[in-house]
């Protein structure tokens, strides 16, 4: 059991109180003449992590990344990388490398020269430069394109070269600014997994900025959700999805049904909430957040955790409401049912399409029961 927990701490170092953060951001603020882009951010990233900063455009995630690279000077706060304070260190002296959203390859140099550029600045011997350039080009499978100029490469190939150019420097920290945003969907999905594999192979700590929650969920070891210059939740993809700590996070990551209500009873393992939008019935919610009796709260439940059926559940433990199917959104693998309750509120339920569409048991205007287990719903106070 002890061995197992130590192992867990190794792959989840944030659970180990003795583990020192590799990148430590302390009260970092960036103030552009009164408009605050990054607001008092404190964040720890551990060695070997693939950390994703996720947020809408303008939430300050790119500014945070640029401060890590040294392109922006923080208004206050500090950044430590491997225990070293980065304040006052210019970009070209930081043990950090960045993959730009536009890739920023040097158009007047070929692939080989682009990748060798960083090593030439370190004044390494030529043979060593050649060896490392070849190694990294092999890693990103671009060895055959050595003599090409950037404009002769496709978007995906350029992305690989930009990655290779940064990796070849063996930085302590690799920053990726929306690295896959310029690729089309299919290529993006393929590259996501490739990038994760490369990261595991080289063992470099990655911090990636993204606005695509699916991308962050697929790739990241942990995600930091940013809004209005602040980090509002940090957690593994599962934690972020299953246990969002606020309405903002639960809405931002995936879709969710949300009902406002008042806490009626508070027990050890669950709370009873009465919600006017759920026909004034009592709903049981498993709660991790403490809420006093009488407090106004929200109950959130993911659509895929809401079971849709023509019959009510036999088990009394389920929360159950009744409604009429308004709409069915067919997505191939799943369908999303829009169910209207008696009071007009729409509840979403996602169900796997076990049957071909014609044989689907639930159709438009059917009266259905929606039910879910208390432990699958979330109590949100913020």
């Amino acid at each position, binding site marked *: 059991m002890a061995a197992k927990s130590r192992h867990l701490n190794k792959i989840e170092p944030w659970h180990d109180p003795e583990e020192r953060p590799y990148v430590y951001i302390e009260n970092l603020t960036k103030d552009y003449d009164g408009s605050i882009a990054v607001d008092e951010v404190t964040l720890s990233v551990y060695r070997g992590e693939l950390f994703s900063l996720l947020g809408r455009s303008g939430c300050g995630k790119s500014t945070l990344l640029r401060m890590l*690279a040294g392109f922006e000077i923080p208004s206050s706060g500090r950044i430590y990388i491997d225990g070293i304070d980065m304040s006052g260190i210019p*970009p*070209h002296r930081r043990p950090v490398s*960045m993959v730009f959203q536009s890739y*920023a390859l*040097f158009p007047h140099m070929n692939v080989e020269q682009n990748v060798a550029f*960083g090593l030439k600045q*370190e004044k390494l011997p030529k043979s060593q430069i050649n060896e490392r350039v070849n190694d990294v080009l092999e890693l990103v499978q671009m060895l055959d394109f050595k003599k090409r100029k950037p404009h002769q490469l496709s978007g995906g190939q350029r992305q690989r070269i930009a990655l290779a150019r940064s990796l070849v420097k063996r930085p302590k920290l690799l920053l990726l600014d929306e690295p896959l945003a310029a690729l089309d969907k299919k290529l993006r999905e393929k590259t996501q997994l490739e990038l994760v594999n490369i990261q595991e192979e080289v063992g470099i700590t990655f911090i990636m900025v993204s606005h695509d929650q699916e991308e962050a969920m697929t790739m990241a070891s942990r995600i930091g959700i940013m809004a209005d210059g602040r980090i509002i939740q940090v957690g593994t993809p599962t934690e972020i999805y299953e246990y969002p700590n606020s309405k903002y996070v639960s809405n931002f990551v995936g879709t969710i049904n949300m009902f406002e209500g008042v806490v009626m009873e508070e027990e050890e393992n669950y709370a009873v909430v009465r919600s006017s939008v759920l026909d004034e019935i009592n709903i049981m919610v498993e709660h991790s957040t403490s809420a006093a009796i009488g407090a106004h709260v929200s109950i959130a439940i993911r659509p895929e955790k809401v079971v849709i059926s023509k019959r009510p559940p036999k088990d009394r433990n389920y929360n159950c409401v009744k409604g009429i199917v308004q709409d069915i959104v067919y997505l191939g693998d799943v369908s999303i049912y829009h169910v209207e309750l008696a009071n007009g509120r729409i509840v979403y339920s996602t169900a796997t399409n076990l049957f071909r569409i014609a044989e689907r048991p639930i159709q438009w205007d059917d009266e259905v029961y929606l039910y879910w287990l208390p432990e699958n719903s979330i109590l949100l106070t913020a």
Partner: protein
Amino acid sequence: MLPKKIKIDVRKFHFKGSSIVVGIPYLWLLVFFLCPCLILLKISFANSALQVPPYSAIFKWLDDNIAQLTFNVANYRLLFTDELYVRTFLTSTVIAAGSALACLLIGYPMAYAIVRSGRKTRMIMLMLVVLPFWTSFLMRVYAWVMLLAPTGVINNILLYLGVIDHPLKLMGNYCAVIIGIVYTYLPFMVLPVYSSLEKIDKSIIEAAQDLGCAPTKVFFSVVAPLSMRGVATGIFLVFMPAIGEYVMPEILGDPSTVTIGRIVWNEFFTNLSWPVASALSVIMIIFVAIPVTLWHSGRQSRLNKRAGQV
């Protein structure tokens, strides 16, 4: 095979709107550039003659059946044998090259400063670069006379301050001519360099820094190579008018600064020797056109090579 070869593509004779639009510049160049050049070429092979216009015809009917075409190459021979003309070409080249170099040394930092400045100041600075064009060209040249003359502003100040005890000869030399040319043609250097610098993606410069390149080195390994096209354009735009420049050597130079522009003027208006003047012009066109064409075709073939690799 033969019928196929002489078959005419009828589509070529369909006039489309686009072909008219494209055709206008061609027509313009044909009428106002190529025709005068051909006339110039013709005159350059003629003899001087006391008639109007003052040169002999090179094409003559001897009788009904025989036409005579006379090419007088004496004008060209004169240019290559008379030391005066050779020296003139050298003088003009030195002045033009010096001006282009000086423009580059002054204009590049200016363009760089403009690109690096904020959006608002950038517009003002660009305006300031172009602003001198709003005053008369001659006025600007005479302003330099006022500054550089023996009794001009600079000499007067230096005399007053006691730095010198007799006026310096600031005018009537290569330097004064170059100053005049640089002052006049500087925008032709600044603007193309500015536009090439402005096109450089800021993240490329950041990427270079990020990869461990110190700011001064970023300039020489990334910014400078990426702005070379603007530099080349600027050099041509300054060099080409400078080599035939007439006004500047006439006003700011002295009789010893004989340039192609002045000698062409002399041959045309003082000696009334149109053929020699034409030959001089033809040589000058060739002299300027060859490097431009070589550079251009070199670039074109590089582009083609790139395209071929894809």
